[in-house]
C-alpha cells in the first residue's frame, strides 16, 4: 500500500505481477465462458480495457469530489456501481454512432461488463490504496490491459487443449480452471520484480 508508487511502475505491475485476474481472481465469470472463442475474447478484452480506464478515472473524480468531502464512504459501493452502469450506457451509444462496425463487434459485450466484478474490484483497490490521478489512470489502464492479456492467453491455450484428449469429466470448465491455476502460478514468477500489494 504505497501511495508513492510511480505510475509507470504501477502500469507494469497491474498488467503482470498484480494481474487482476490471475493474482486477484476478479472477473472470472466472463473470463471462463468467453475464452472459448478467440475472436470474442479479443473483443471483450478490448471492451474491458476501455471501460476499466474510463470508469476508474470518473470514479476517482467522484471519490475525491463528492464521497470524501462529504464523508459518505459507506455509500461508495452504490455510487461506484451507478457510475459504472451509466458510463457503460453512454459508451455504448457513442460507439454505435461513431463506428457501427466496432459496435457490432464489441457493443454486445458492453452490458456484460457492467457486472464484471473486476471493474468494481479495481475501483475499490484504487480507493483503499488512495491513489492519485496519474496512479489511477495507469492502474485502470493496466488492470484492463492485464485482463485482456490474460483472456487472450487463456483462449489460445484452450484452442490447443480442444485438440487434446481431455478426460470427459474435466472437459470445459474443469480443465479451464486447472489451466487458470497454472497460469496464475506462472505469473507469480513475476512478483519478485515489482510488488505493489
Amino acid at each position: 500500500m504505497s501511495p508513492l508508487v510511480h505510475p509507470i511502475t504501477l502500469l507494469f505491475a497491474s498488467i503482470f505481477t498484480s494481474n487482476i485476474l490471475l493474482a486477484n481472481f476478479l472477473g472470472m465469470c466472463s473470463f471462463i465462458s468467453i475464452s472459448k472463442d478467440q475472436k470474442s475474447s479479443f473483443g471483450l478484452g478490448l471492451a474491458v480495457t476501455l471501460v476499466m480506464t474510463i470508469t476508474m478515472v470518473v470514479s476517482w473524480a467522484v471519490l475525491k469530489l463528492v464521497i470524501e468531502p462529504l464523508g459518505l464512504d459507506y455509500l461508495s459501493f452504490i455510487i461506484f456501481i451507478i457510475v459504472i452502469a451509466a458510463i457503460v450506457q453512454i459508451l455504448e451509444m457513442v460507439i454505435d454512432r461513431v463506428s457501427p462496425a466496432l459496435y457490432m463487434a464489441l457493443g454486445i459485450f458492453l452490458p456484460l461488463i457492467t457486472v464484471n466484478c473486476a471493474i468494481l474490484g479495481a475501483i475499490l483497490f484504487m480507493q483503499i490504496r488512495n491513489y492519485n490521478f496519474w496512479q489511477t489512470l495507469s492502474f485502470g489502464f493496466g488492470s484492463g490491459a492485464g485482463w485482456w492479456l490474460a483472456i487472450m492467453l487463456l483462449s489460445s491455450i484452450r484452442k490447443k487443449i480442444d485438440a487434446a484428449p481431455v478426460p470427459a469429466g474435466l472437459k470445459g470448465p474443469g480443465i479451464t480452471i486447472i489451466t487458470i491455476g497454472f497460469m496464475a502460478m506462472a505469473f507469480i514468477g513475476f512478483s519478485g520484480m515489482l510488488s505493489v500489494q
Partner: protein
Amino acid sequence: MKMNFDERSAYEKMKSGVLTSTGFLGHDTRPLTDIIAADEELFKALGLDFDQVADRLQELAARGAEGLGEPITVDGLYLVKSDEARGRLPCPYGDGLYHKNSVSVERGDDRIIYSDLSLHLLRVHHFCQGQGSPFRLDPVVLKRICF
C-alpha cells in the same frame, strides 16, 4: 454455464413463434448447451456419429424427393414423404439459409420429420432439438430408423 452472445441469440431464435410456429425447443426448459451436451452423450453411448446420421437422413430425403411431394417407399423399409414450401429459413445460429422442405420418414412404428435446416443443426451444431418438439431427432429413435 453462462451462454455467450451467439448461443443466447440462437436460443432466442429457437423459441416458438420466432422462426417457425412451434420453434425448435418443444417444452424443454434446459439451457441450450445442456440439451446439446446431453444429446452428444447419447450419441456417443449409442455409437452414432453425427455426420454419418446426417448423411443417411440426407440420402433418404433425396430418394424421397423422387415422389415429388407424395409418399414413396424406399428400400422396402421406409415410407418417405418430401414436401416443400415457398421461402427459406435462416439457421438460428446465423450461418446459412435453408429451403423450407419437410421430409417425413416412417419405419415400423417410428416416425421422424426433418428439413434441410434440421440436418444442418444436427451435423454442424450437434443439435437434435428439444424434448417435446415435433421435429426432434431423438438419438434413440435415430438409431432404430437409420441402422
